[in-house]
């Protein structure tokens, strides 16, 4: 480095320094201006934007699930309730030693290995400040054990959640149905609007009224604005729009009558439907065997589900609306009325019954269920009372199937009844047109003989039979069957679907025949009227499960129990001013008069003990309250 020989000059130095420093000061001022301008830009010009950004950061909108609407029977007995279910949850962040805590909990309450395994799996997906459930549905004792030892387990808490509860259990499993956790499939079917409405809700109606009235029961989701920190932990609620609870439903169903119907059916498989003749309201709705709907609410266990779904008795099957059975002789009143109206028969028509019937030019022999026949002068009333098949075969042979089809459809056969329940089946009443389309073959005269007796192609659900019976009792006024009586206190008006014009004399004759079924000494349904101080009209029926080979003897002993005929009985009461119509199906019950008619008797006895018209009362608390007061 060459040496600098200039002299130091303090004045030059100072001048230079000041010169440079002044330039630097100018630079400082400019840069300070930049900073001030920047703050002006951020805090004043774009204040609104950043205010919004910061609010979006800290405020999170959280859905608040509405309370599901309650379901009551007609007397205010609670059928579907919401109950607090207590779950044990752990907040990972606050637990010092997780393994030790889990072990301690294991000493206090019952804890399956699978609970712990599922908990560890769930924990991985949640953030450390979120409570992770360990055990669901704690008992009172378990809650007490946890509470007493809470101080030893920081981060462990018992949390309440409202879940559906069905106090009467399996009695209403098929009518009220049940809710379950929203499944993947439910989610796939959700519309945009559904996605919004189900925010915060974990259950959805799966079966029965819970499903058909899902939209009303659900309610409207509420929202709350919560302040969260950067890790998403909720610090406080800023404001809240309350959810609107779902509407309450009051059903036509009567818990007491339902219980009587269920008890009357006993351990047998079958279905019982009772309908209020004047409104179409469904008073009893029993499908047996049933199941405990509470199992499904928070998710049914695999074992429980397998037990139910693999059972030979198919308890999950709703026999009332999904079971399609040949209605058998229960169709006779309707067929008789139709034939009267069509002029095929009259009050005077009498036939000779040798115990069998043969179509012209057909070698096949149609056997009556009484081998020696019903006598030489069988008229319509006797044919109904004793269920004489030959009378109806003769009638059917002379009658056009499409006329039969028309009269059947006036009574709701072959079409869905339109009840406010999902998954209803339509049954079937054949016609020429139907057979050609469905089977590709023309109508044979033998088909008419089967159809008139409710066999062959004919299928009906127990509900359809009840509606048919109620329509007979109403002398042609056909109401849509209804489960729900009031929605949120608003009475649902009865819906008249159709009014059949028929000659009053013809109605009288049909009533006479059905009354004879119950009241004549040789009637097949005598037991339906036993011990009652009002008159009952009915019709028994038997539905073949297995076709019987030509010429073979009917031997029930030799058949397996499940191959025995189904027993059917339809009835209404009282005859002069009908109030209730019932349809009873007992699977493999063999004879309608013997097995099904007594069920009708019990229903009538119970229902007719009530004042009429029914007094609207405040909601009762006990099952027996209403009936006892009446």
């Amino acid at each position: 480095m060459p040496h600098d020989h200039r002299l130091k000059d303090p004045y030059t130095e100072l001048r230079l320094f000041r010169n440079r420093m002044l330039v630097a000061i100018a630079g400082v001022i400019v840069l300070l201006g930049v900073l001030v301008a920047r703050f002006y830009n951020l805090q004043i010009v774009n204040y609104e934007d950043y205010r919004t950004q910061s609010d979006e950061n800290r405020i999170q909108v959280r859905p608040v699930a509405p309370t599901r609407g309650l379901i009551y029977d007609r007397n205010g007995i609670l059928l579907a309730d919401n109950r607090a279910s207590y779950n044990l949850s752990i907040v990972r962040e606050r637990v010092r030693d997780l393994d030790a805590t889990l072990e301690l909990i294991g000493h206090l309450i019952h804890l399956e290995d699978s609970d712990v395994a599922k908990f560890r799996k769930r924990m991985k997906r949640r953030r450390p400040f979120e409570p992770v459930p360990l055990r669901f549905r704690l008992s009172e004792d378990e809650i007490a054990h946890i509470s007493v030892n809470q101080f030893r387990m920081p981060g462990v808490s018992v949390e309440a959640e409202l879940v559906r509860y069905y106090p009467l259990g399996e009695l209403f499993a098929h009518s009220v149905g049940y809710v379950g956790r929203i499944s993947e499939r439910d989610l796939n079917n959700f519309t945009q609007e559904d996605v919004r409405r189900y925010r915060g809700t974990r259950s959805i109606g799966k079966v029965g009224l819970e499903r058909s009235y899902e939209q009303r029961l659900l309610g409207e989701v509420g929202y709350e604005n919560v302040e969260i920190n950067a890790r998403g932990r909720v610090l406080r609620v800023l404001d809240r729009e309350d959810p609107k609870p779902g509407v309450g439903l009051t059903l036509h169903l009567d818990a007491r009558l339902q219980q009587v119907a269920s008890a009357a059916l006993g351990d047998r498989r079958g279905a019982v439907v009772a309908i209020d003749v004047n409104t179409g309201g469904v008073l009893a709705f029993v499908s047996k065997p049933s199941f405990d709907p509470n199992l499904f609410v928070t998710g049914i266990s695999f074992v429980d589900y397998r037990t139910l779904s693999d059972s030979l008795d198919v308890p999950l099957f709703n026999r009332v609306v999904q079971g399609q059975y040949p209605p058998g002789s229960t169709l006779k009143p309707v067929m008789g009325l139709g034939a009267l109206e069509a002029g095929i028969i009259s009050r005077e028509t009498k036939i000779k019954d040798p115990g069998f019937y043969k179509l012209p030019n057909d070698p096949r022999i149609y056997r009556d269920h009484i081998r020696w026949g019903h006598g030489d002068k069988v008229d319509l009333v006797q044919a109904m009372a004793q269920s004489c098949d030959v009378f109806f075969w003769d009638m059917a042979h002379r009658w056009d199937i499409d006329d039969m089809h028309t009269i059947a459809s006036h009574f709701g056969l072959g079409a869905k009844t339109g009840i406010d329940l999902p998954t209803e089946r339509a049954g079937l009443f054949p016609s020429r047109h139907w057979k050609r389309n469905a089977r590709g073959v023309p109508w044979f005269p033998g088909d008419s003989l089967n159809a008139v007796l409710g066999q062959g192609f004919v299928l009906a659900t127990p509900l359809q039979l009840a509606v048919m019976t109620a329509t007979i009792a109403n002398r042609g006024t056909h109401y849509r069957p209804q489960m729900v009586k009031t929605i949120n206190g608003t009475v649902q008006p009865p819906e008249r679907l159709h009014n059949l014009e028929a000659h009053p004399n013809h109605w009288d004759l049909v009533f006479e025949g059905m009354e004879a079924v119950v009241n004549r000494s040789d009637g097949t349904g005598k037991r339906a009227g036993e011990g009652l101080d009002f008159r009952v009209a009915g019709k028994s029926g038997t539905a073949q499960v297995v076709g019987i080979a030509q010429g073979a003897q009917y031997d029930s002993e030799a058949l397996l129990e499940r191959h025995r005929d189904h027993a059917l009985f339809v009835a209404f009461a009282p005859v002069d001013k009908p109030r209730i119509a019932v349809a009873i199906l007992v699977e493999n019950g063999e004879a309608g008069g013997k097995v099904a008619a007594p069920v009708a008797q019990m229903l009538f006895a119970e229902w007719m003990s009530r004042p009429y018209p029914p007094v609207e009362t405040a909601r009762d608390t006990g099952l027996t309250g209403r009936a006892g007061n009446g």
Partner: protein
Amino acid sequence: MANRDYSHRLSDMDSSLRKPVSLARRLHLDVPLLVLLLMLACVGLGVLYSASGGDINYVQRQSVFMCLAFLGMFIVAQIPLDFYRRWSIWAYLGGCTLLLGVLLFGTGAKGAQRWLEIGGFRFQPSEMMKLGVPMMVAAFLHQRAQPPALAAVCGALVIVAVPAALIVRQPDLGTAILIAASGLFALYLAGLSWKMIGAAVAALMASTWPIWQWGLRDYQRQRILTLLNPHDDRFGAGWNIFNSKAAIGSGGVYGKGYLQGTQSQLDFLPESHTDFIIAVLAEEWGMRGVLLLLLLYVLVIARGIYISFMAQYLFGRLLAGSITLTFFVYVFVNIGMVTGLLPIVGVPLPMISYGGTSLITLMAGFGILMAVGTERRRVHF
């Protein structure tokens, strides 16, 4: 060379006879500067209390640092400037050796070695060099005629380049640039010719592309890209800057109120008690708070410039000027970074951010400033 200022000594005796020396002057304290620094310290502790989420422990610890730093400043102020000038070469060489040591035996975090552990003490030699480099440059130029000849300029550049290069290797580009800047300020204030400045600026601009391409590491390039497009990666690299801007902007003119800042109190603001602390102030006190703080800084800088103007010798003058300008650079870089004007470099906000090391260095700098300001007057103008 040693005996060239007889006249100064004579006049010195003269002045001390004329005027009684105040207590503050005898204690080598510059009262306006001291008052401003105390005010800044109070503001700092107040903001820190909020920024730490109401954690008094942080405030207590920072108060201890403050006390130590003021004590350090006081001690530094007592030492005559001549001593610094004579010993600066050794301090500089020692600092360079330690920086070399950091590269060889250093410890650190996040992929950078910045710390040196000797006998249980952990310290950052780069902190030391924040004062060591401008001191060495000032001492070097002090002996030479001004404006500095080319040879002197080259010498000064070497003095700056060696530690800067060592710090870049740690790697700590931010600190290296700031240390280089402090040395270059001294050179600039000594009267570096505009031609040379112009040439340097031109060279720097020309090398922008090569530096981007080869001189920067990936994370450094990412920081610059983030600066240009903070919304590109809001929840990743852009998170800090997105949230600090939201905090500042949402403060508006009047702020959300002390301890009421949602961004800072709800942990949306990262590093809220260290590098990003001004965002807390801006959110809770609004623009008035920011302007007040900037005013305090401006007054400190003004006082520093005044002291440098009044300095007796070139060494003190250059050193005081360099320290003052560097102080401003710290303020500007920190605020520029938090408001999204500059890429993110780890520079704390002087006197406000939590942390002891940088505070002590900073206050030592002010101690030197006070030593310059209270230097015995020997010359009258």
